[in-house]
Each structure stands twice: as C-alpha cells, then as structure tokens.
C-alpha cells in the first residue's frame, strides 16, 4: 500500500513480468491408514509478481493443499517450489518461519484473531516476530487500521467486532510486515454478500495500488470474479489456468 496510486507504468509492468511463484511438478501425498492418498498429482504453475489470481475448484480438489504449499505451511512430497527465485525445498523450519513472516500475509476464512488481544495488537502480531522497531511497527499498524476504516475500533476485542470488521483487521494484519504475497483462504466464506464485496474490494485495492501479489482460494464465483486470472484445480491437477 505504500506505492502511489499513479505509479509509473514501466516499473509496474516490469514487475508484472517477474515470476514470483514457480511450481514445478509438485505432488503431495498423505498416508492415511497405510493407504497413500494423492492430493496433488503434479502441479506446474507460474504466478507473476503483481498478479491477482483466484484458485478455484470443488472441495477435495486439492486447492487448500495447494494454498498451504504456496504459504510454506506444507512441503511438497516431490517437485519444487521457488518463491521469488529461492528454492524453498532447501530451507529448514526456522528459515521457512522467517520467510512466511517477511514475504507472505495470510487471510483466513475464520479470521483467526487472538481473542484476548485488541484489534491493534492483532494487527501488530506478525510484526512482533520481525525486525521492525517497536515504534515504527505501531505507527504502521495504526496506519493500516485507518486504511481498513477501523481506527475507532483499535482498542476493541475481536468479540466486539462484526465479522466484516474482524476480516478487515485480519487483512491489516496480513499487510503489517509489507509482504510481497497475500494468500487468502476463502476470505468471504463467513461473510454476507455486501461484506464480501467490501473485503474483495480491499484485496483488489491492495493488489492494484500496493502492487501486492494476491492469491485467493475460493469456490465462490462472485469472489473469484474479482481476480484477473482464474486457476481451476481438479483432482489434484491444474485443469485450467
């Protein structure tokens, strides 16, 4: 969100050509009760920096697992995942934690705000594990809350906020460490259509004005319509991208 709205076309275009995400023949197999289940059966996918993409598919198609792998919460059984040119397969758990902290912001279907912390404290949470100095972090948190229209609610607990307000807090939280990539897992799944439109509008703004790469996993057509690229997952494979 720090990039000006009228950013020159040239750098934005050149960034758009840069590849942020490169998945090469990624598989993911779980062993349950001695029976292997293949959830991803060879996914090859490139996503460029600055894209706004929706990953769609019926439940059980593997789209959630794909999102977990993109978010470095899960590792591929085989194949490679390069994020910003780095091979993530070679990183240990702590390095993955740092990379998640610095490069990825998460938005979840059920918000996952810490119930005993205020809205502002929730926004600052990823910053606690970063190198940003305390005062600068706090200023940034307050500015982000203002951008999602919740300055007045900074001291409220999640239980005092509506669903839409909670998801806006979660969006501000995803942005606090200024990551390149925003991953949203069914971000409108628990919201009514008006509130959903609000949240998707905010994600579109984040993509357009701040140049963040936004990937939304959803099974909802209306939500997916905000994205400029639709990726369809079926039976663990990319059916259409």
């Amino acid at each position, binding site marked *: 969100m720090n990039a000006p709205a009228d950013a020159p076309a040239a750098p934005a275009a050149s960034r758009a050509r840069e590849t942020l995400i490169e998945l090469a023949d990624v598989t993911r197999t779980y062993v349950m009760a001695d029976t292997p289940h293949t959830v991803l059966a060879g996914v090859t996918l490139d996503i460029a920096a600055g894209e706004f993409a929706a990953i769609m598919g019926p439940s059980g198609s593997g789209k959630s697992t794909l999102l977990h792998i993109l978010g470095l*919460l899960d590792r591929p059984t085989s194949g490679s995942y390069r994020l910003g040119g780095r091979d993530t397969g070679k990183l240990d758990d702590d*390095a993955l*934690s740092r990379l998640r902290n610095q490069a990825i912001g998460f938005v979840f279907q*059920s918000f*996952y705000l810490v119930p005993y*912390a205020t809205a502002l*404290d929730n926004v600052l949470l990823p910053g606690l*594990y970063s190198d940003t100095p305390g005062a600068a972090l706090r200023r940034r948190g307050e500015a982000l809350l203002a951008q999602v229209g919740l300055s007045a609610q900074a001291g409220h607990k999640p239980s005092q906020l509506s669903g839409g307000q909670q998801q806006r807090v979660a969006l501000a939280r995803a942005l606090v460490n200024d990551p390149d990539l925003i991953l949203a897992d069914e971000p409108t799944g628990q919201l009514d259509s008006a509130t959903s439109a609000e949240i998707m509008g905010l994600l579109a703004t984040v993509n357009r004005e701040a140049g963040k790469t936004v990937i939304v996993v959803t099974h909802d057509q209306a939500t997916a319509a905000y994205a400029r690229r639709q990726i369809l997952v079926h039976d663990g494979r990319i059916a259409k991208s």
Partner: protein
Amino acid sequence: MTAASRSPRRALRILWRIQRMALLALLAHKARSAFVIAAVAMGVAALTVIVASVDGARRKALEIVDFFGPDAVMVLGGDIENRPVGQRIYTLTWADARAVARSLPGAYAVLPMRSIRQITLKYDNRNHESPVVVGATENYARAWNWPLAEGRDLSEEDVARGAKVALIGDEPARQLFGDASPLGRTIMVKNLPVQIVGRLAYRGLSGGGSDVTIDDRIIMPISTLTQRFNLDRKYFRGLRIKFHDPDLIDTHKDNLRALLRHLHHLGPTDNDDFTIISASEILKFLTAFTGGLVAFLGITAGVAIVVGGFVLANLMFLSVSERKAEIGLRKAVGASGAALTAQFLSEALYLTLAGSLAGVALGVALGESLSRLGLLQLRLSPKVFVLSLAAAVVIALVFGLRPARKAAAMDPIEALRGGDD
C-alpha cells in the same frame, strides 16, 4: 533455533515483545491462572515454613550451646540414658566435688547444684508458682554465661554463710514486681524470707517444646537451700564443671568419667551411676527432637511443590489445546518453535512467580501462627525468598516445558483446522 543462535539480539527482542501478549493471555484466563497460582503457593508456603523452622532450630541450638557453654560439662547423679530400675539418682557427694576440683586436669570451676521443684513465691499479695529453685555456689551468673540485668551475683560469702539471698529470673520478677525493680526486696520462698540481690537478664529459651521458660527460676546459695529446706546434706543433684580449653572437652569428659568411676568404686562391669552431659549431647537431643518435624515438613513441601507442578502442567496442556488456533496462526505469521516455547514458558513463569510470592506471604503467616502456638521456632531470612523464587523457576521449567514444546511442535495446518470447522 538457527535464526535465534545466529542473532541473539533478535531472539531477545522477540522474547521481550511477546511478554505483553503472555500477560494478556493469563489475564484472559483468570480462574485458571488463579488455580495454578494457588497450587504453587501451597508448595512454596510449606517450603517457607520448613526453611524458616530449620533456621530457627539451628539458631535455638546455637543459643543453647552458647548458654550451656562449649567449655563446660554437667554431671548428674544416676544413669539417665539407661535408667536401671532402683538405681539411686543421688550419687554425687561433696567429697566427689572436692576430689574433682582438686585433681581433674584442665578444670577451673566445679560448681555443685541442686534444686527443688514447684515452690510458691510470694511478694505482698502476689503469688507465683515457680517451677524450679536452684541451689548454686558463688558466681552462678558468670558460670552460666548469663548476664545480670541488675544487681550482683552470688558471692562466696553468701554460700559460706548460708545467706537468705537470691537471684531472680525474668519471669518471676515480672510476675511479682511488674516493671518495678526487685532489687533489695524480700520475697517469701515457700516460708523463707529471701532478699533479692540480682536479676538475671531475659533469656527467652524454652525447653524442647514445653512452655516452661528457662527464665522462670530463682537461684539461692546451695548451702541455704540445703539447710532451710532440709535436703540431704551428703549428696547433691548436679555438678557443673568448666574447663580452660573447649577443644579438649572430649578428653576432659573421659578423664572425669574415669575419676568418678574410681571415686564411686565401680568395677569394670558396673554401669556408670552418673551421667555427663556436654553441649554436643544437648545438640544431639535437639536435633533428634526437631528432626522428625523437619522431615515431615520437608516431605510435605516436596509433595506440595510437585502437586503444584502437575496442576501447572495440566492446565497448560488444557490451555495449549484450547488455543490451537492461536498457536497455528502465530506459526503461520512466522513465529518459530523457539518463540512459541518461550511464550508458553513465560506464561508458566509468571504464574509460578506470582504463586511463589503468594506462598511466601502465606508461609510467613503460617509460621507466625505456628511459633505463636509454640510448635516451632522460626527465623525468616532472605534465603527464604531466594529459595522460593528458585522453586518458582524450577517448577515453571520442569513442568511447563512439555506443554510449551507441544505448542511449539504443532503443525500449523492441523492447529488452524482444529480451531474451527
């Protein structure tokens, strides 16, 4: 871990930053936190009482040794330890005392004593039942390292004349005279008028567990006691002997025993008909007396602390499974396993530290009432605080580590899924 070890400053900053959240989490679960604090407080209270009572017992023992004198022994008639049936307890004679004074090497004072028990003291219209009236030779106060609050000690002349004079202990002086000085006053010891010439300083020692204080006594010349109360003129009850060199006290005891056996014509197979007591015997007795209580309290404290630890561990496991979603989220946004371990250990530490402070307060209150009941002598020292803080840290680390590690080891996907849907 690698990130943390690569940059200790970064690890410290994260540790500092998560403290506020740790405290907020504890405040959010007040009942649970209070339960852990109470459980730890019980253990630390028991620990406080035990440490204070061990210190108290040690100080009391040192006071008693100091009072008895490390350079002295006491000889009593009769064999106290074996107490053979029918054995006389009046076996020490004036001839023994003279022989010891004359021929025992290293001894510089030989002080025969006898006593009578339960005598009524009267002054004006006030009565006081004194548990013991001691008959002593000259310089009683000096021989017992017992300072005089006022007046003078018994003199050689008092003993030679059988003078009707006495030293008064703090307790009867208080009972009969209140705050007024007893010096020069004449009190009735049973039916004998006796003039008070000195008042012994307050000693404040009680015999093992009894409520009779050592301050409740009257001291008169042994000659006066013998003549006026018709006591046996040949024998007396006890003999106090002081030596020049306290380091040689064991040798002195052996010599004394050999001499008395010779004087009493005891054959090689006969038992002693006297008992020699030195400061080390008194210490042994006191240690045995308080030892049982100390062991009981020690086991209680240990059990209470372990119970506190298990309460902590269980409620932390509950907390970890309840806060799965929070843990998953923290991992997703970049908290390392070490950061999560540190957060849960910090929460544990806050609880045990609060419990330890509450426990010290509780222990002090408990100790006060125990010592008021005369069950224990307590001595509170900074050691108590240091030990209970150490106990808090140990409980938090030993019992908090497993739940904290469980939180750190959670799979973020599983944790986030478990938190909802």
